[in-house]
């Protein structure tokens, strides 16, 4: 079932945007709360100092980066089952937002790692390197989409790649972990004990990022739906003018 009716696409887009509108207030409040808890409420970490506060945003972004990829996978699977392009747009929107969050993780990581571990990039750490591979898969997904024109072929291929990528990520994580245990990397798990306030700040941050992801993803989804509807209408005009 294709979105043959541009009105239906517009309707879905409208619902999506309205949903985001509802999220704006909670998002704003959460955002303020997150900033407060991260910078003021949570105590300064003894060993690492102030730079540790980046940890809250880093983890928040990392969680959403992987959550987004789950939706890329899910959108692909449902598309292949139902052949409704809405799910393909959802997967694409999720990928577009996901890659941004993954980039945030990869940028905040080294900023935190260098002063604490004296290295920009701890290759042996499975979380770090898996996130890098996730980023590569995201980018590959988007490049693939970009090189194919609008249509069911692009949706099909994206879905297949998304599924293969999703199956692969846990295997990547495992393989890097084995790699690390064989070559013990200099970085040992920082025995940073998390005080309760820190845990709370972390939860707030994760919640904020999740809502932020949902909002952004719905906006991108609405944009894809709008584009699709616009293209349908333009095509209708072209045909009538022939």
């Amino acid at each position, binding site marked *: 079932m294709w979105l043959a009716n541009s009105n239906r696409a517009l309707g879905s887009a409208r619902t999506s945007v309205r949903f985001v509108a509802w999220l704006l207030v909670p998002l704003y409040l959460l955002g303020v709360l997150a900033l407060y808890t991260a910078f003021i409420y949570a105590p300064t970490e003894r060993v690492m100092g102030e730079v540790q506060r980046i940890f809250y945003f880093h983890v928040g972004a990392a969680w959403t980066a992987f959550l987004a990829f789950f939706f890329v996978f899910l959108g692909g699977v449902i598309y*292949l089952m139902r052949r409704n392009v809405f799910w393909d747009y959802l997967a694409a929107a999720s990928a577009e937002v996901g890659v941004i969050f993954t980039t945030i993780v990869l940028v905040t990581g080294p900023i935190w790692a260098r002063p604490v571990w004296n290295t920009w990039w701890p290759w042996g750490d499975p979380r770090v390197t898996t996130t890098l*591979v996730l980023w*590569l*898969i995201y*980018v*590959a997904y988007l*490049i*693939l989409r970009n*090189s*194919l024109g609008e249509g069911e*072929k692009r949706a*099909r*291929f994206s*879905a*297949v*790649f998304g*599924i*293969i*990528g999703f*199956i*692969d990520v846990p*295997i*990547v994580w*495992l*393989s*890097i972990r*084995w*790699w690390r245990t*064989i070559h013990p990397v200099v970085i040992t798990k920082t025995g940073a004990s998390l005080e309760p306030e820190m845990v709370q700040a972390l939860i707030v941050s994760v919640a904020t990022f999740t809502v932020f992801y949902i909002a952004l993803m719905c906006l991108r989804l609405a944009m894809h739906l709008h584009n699709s509807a616009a293209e349908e209408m333009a095509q209708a005009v072209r045909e009538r003018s022939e």
Partner: protein
Amino acid sequence: MNNLKLIWWLALKDLKIEYRSRQAFLTTLFFAVLILIIFNFAFDPGSNATREASPGILWVALLFPGIIQLNRSFQSEVEEGTLQGIVLSPVDRGVFFLGKFMANWLFLVAIDMLILAAFVVFFNFTLSGGLLWVLLLMVLVGIGFTAVGTVFAAMVSNIRIREVLLPILLFPIIVPIILAAVNGTREVLIHNDFSTLFRWMQLLIAFDVIFLAAGFLVFDYVVGE
């Protein structure tokens, strides 16, 4: 319809075509040897550091030509539309996948063996039993690489930038088997550590099984229209 025979006939068709021109085999082989040679100029040939790094060099020399061959494997199908010929027939898409996979994998293993010989010569390794283990690694890595690679090669076969797109799609996915390949080779040839080798092989086998099954199942979505 005997599916196993079909897989063999499909593979045989590709191998026959390859044999007729022999162009791909020789140029791919040449390219791989070239990479080995270039790395010998890039690194200090005698040093210990280079020796430690040599498994990585070996696998780079195998992977890049492997990608080129994957792309070519579908060019013959795009040329005169022969892909349509197979899709039109009652042959199961999964069977078609396995046929292509088999041809690609056999081709790859053949090249791998010759490159290993060149590698031993250029990097001064002694002929030992360890080499047989490396061959086994090549066989296993070849399966995972070819399984995922065949799916992606089919996808990009009609895209203009396929030469650069295939590695972009494939390399992130095969990171685990690259790790297994390089580390496994290093353990066996340089450190003589078999327990670690076996652990990596377990990972390889798991990867192979998972992605061979995945390729079989999704191929319908890739070649059907």
